[in-house]
């Protein structure tokens, strides 16, 4: 299994994501944001951080990177998994690969803490604790978009004690049709027991299972 992690100037969770991927034994490579060859990866991560300093809006400037512009094709032709975490989720929304948008937290402050989340996915515990760390994590979408999200059962993670004012307590979306996952919480920060929390493993195990099945089927 091969994972690619797109690195922008300003990305800061690239190494953390790599550490987590390697923990699960995946072959892992960094993809510099100028690269466009994405189809060799079974899974692509848009990791957390501040791409282009998050200037103007979080994720706004990154959408012009060649790598990001090639993602649409990756989703259509390769049909690998595309996972955006934190800044990655913001980029996915800014590029319209996922619906809606992430805006400034209602308290206007950056929030870093462990939050309890309600999970809507088979084979995952109903509730997990992940770290969040963001200033622009308030999920917003118009009524129509929200109806679409619910109709397609896309809400993957919900905050139990909504910290940032997200509509419908949305913390993460999963577009199963296109295999795109976007989430504000950081599962990659919950892999090593030395750092206290290991709930993030569930997320990587979920991807591992889905992808291993396919790799086996393909060979």
């Amino acid at each position, binding site marked *: 299994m091969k994972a690619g992690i797109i690195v922008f100037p300003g990305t800061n969770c690239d190494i953390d994501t790599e550490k987590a991927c390697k923990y699960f034994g995946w072959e892992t490579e960094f993809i510099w944001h100028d690269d466009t060859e994405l189809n060799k990866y079974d899974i692509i991560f848009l990791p957390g951080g501040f791409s282009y300093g998050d200037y103007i809006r979080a994720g706004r400037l990154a959408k012009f990177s060649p790598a990001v512009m090639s993602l649409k094709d990756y989703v259509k032709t390769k049909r690998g998994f595309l996972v955006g975490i934190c800044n990655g989720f913001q980029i996915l929304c800014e590029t319209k690969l996922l619906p809606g948008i992430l*805006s*400034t937290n209602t308290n206007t402050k950056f929030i870093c803490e462990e939050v309890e989340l309600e999970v809507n996915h088979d084979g995952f515990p109903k509730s997990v604790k992940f770290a969040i760390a963001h200033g622009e994590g308030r999920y917003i979408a118009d009524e129509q978009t929200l109806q679409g999200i619910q109709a397609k059962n896309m809400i993957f993670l919900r905050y139990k004690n909504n910290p940032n004012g997200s509509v419908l307590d949305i913390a993460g979306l999963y577009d199963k049709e296109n295999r795109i996952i976007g989430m504000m919480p950081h599962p990659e920060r919950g892999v090593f027991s030395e750092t206290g929390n290991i709930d993030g493993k569930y997320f990587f195990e979920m991807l591992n299972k889905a992808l291993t099945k396919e790799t086996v089927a393909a060979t």
Partner: protein
Amino acid sequence: MKKYKADIIVTLKKGVRDPQGAAVDTVLKRTGIQEIAQVQTGKFFTLDVTGSDETNAKAKLDTICREVLSNPVLESYKVERFVEL
């Protein structure tokens, strides 16, 4: 090629919550300068844009505003000034 200077103001669309404005309101209240000021915040940009003529440059400016400086889901923009250099 002609060159123009433009001022742009980006504001939140009506109905979109503006936490930053609310925060300024709190500070104004705290300092006792003004009880309720109904502050709304936005962004301001000045930039140069080139084009074969005014229409062409304006079209380019529009793209920059829509694709870079604002996000139409949330924000609207207004070209406040547009002058040839």
